[in-house]
């Protein structure tokens, strides 16, 4: 892949151009567009991608995009984004054809649902899986590792330092949060540490 990959353990979750600029001002070279209208902030996002910032998009959360090949081609080719997240394996399969990194979102709500999510993982194997809510990761990491060795990202409900630290300590490679305070605190945290 020619697009940039991950550079640290904290993945700032941005929702609008204000939070996008805050993350960039802190020196982050990676972002997760978690929700909001991608099209309303497409200019600054494209500019960041051109400067080598790795941009990942949660296709289940953003507005303004269809979940189809035209949208994926736009993200990959026109915008130069690094990857996409979705709960839907068929979308990720399409995305891999556009050389986007694919991150399978899996809801960790109970053991039945987690099992279903882990079993739904398609081929090719995703670049990573994103467990939501991340705060469940300490409880489910053993189950996950019994089923896959791909990197684990934690997204959802991370608002305190303790929560983020616990998720990383449990073995997650990356944790995502929308909290500016945590972006400041984990700015230098190395990936998978």
């Amino acid at each position, binding site marked *: 892949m020619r697009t940039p990959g991950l550079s640290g353990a904290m993945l700032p979750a941005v929702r609008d151009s204000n939070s996008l600029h805050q993350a960039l001002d802190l020196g982050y070279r990676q972002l997760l567009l*978690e929700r909001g209208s991608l099209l309303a902030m497409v200019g600054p996002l494209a500019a960041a991608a051109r400067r080598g910032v790795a941009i990942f998009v949660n296709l289940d959360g953003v507005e303004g995009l269809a979940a189809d090949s035209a949208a994926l081609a736009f993200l990959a080719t026109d915008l130069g984004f690094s990857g996409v997240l979705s709960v839907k394996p068929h979308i990720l399969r399409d995305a891999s054809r556009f050389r986007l990194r694919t991150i399978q979102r899996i*809801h*960790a709500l109970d053991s*039945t*649902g987690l099992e279903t999510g882990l079993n739904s993982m398609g081929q090719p194997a995703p670049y990573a899986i994103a467990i939501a*809510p991340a*705060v*469940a990761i300490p409880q489910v990491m053993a189950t996950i590792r019994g089923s896959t060795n791909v990197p684990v990202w934690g*997204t*959802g409900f991370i608002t305190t330092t303790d929560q983020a630290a616990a998720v990383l300590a449990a073995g997650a490679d990356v944790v995502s949060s929308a909290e500016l305070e945590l972006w400041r605190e984990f700015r230098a945290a190395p990936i998978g540490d």
Partner: protein
Amino acid sequence: MAARAMTPAARGQAVDRSVARLFEAFDHVPVAAVIRHAEDLPRALASQVPAIFFVRAPAFHLGPLVWAVQARGKMAFVHIDLIAGLGKDRAGIAFLAREIGVNGIITSHSGLVAAAKAERVIAVQRLLLYDDLALHPAMAAIEHARPDIVEVQPAVIFPLVADQIRARHPVPIIVGGFVTEPHQREAALQRGARAISTSKMSLWP
């Protein structure tokens, strides 16, 4: 059938009575057994849990399992979103309520809560809180649907949202999802959950 003739007020009283009976039992044994595989049922039947939640069971073979639960004086709940073979609609709910006679229905969907309330069964609305994007629609949904019981998943989220839920719709809360250790059960109860739901047999007293 009696259920068809019942007025809304009578329905309300009948369900209120069974909800009251359920939580009286939960005050002694605050655990619902989640049955993921039929072979786990005998262990749940032999336990003291007052309620059994069926997830994943095939709908058209559910009758004998539900009746076995009720024969033990326990209440049987069916997760309509997850069980195979049944429409996730009014007719599906009516089948569970009238033909099988379940005590309650578990669902994430407000429309199905309304359908369960229209039948003579306890409506449990499950809140699937995977991120805070899911939180606001979930809060609006319980306020709108007004289920008899709210079930929050996963349990680790409960302390973060307990006050918000109570402010929106003050009904009894059951907490489930990765409750596998006694300290997790205690944490949920301490935060005001009336019971926990778990498939972990060692937590079925």
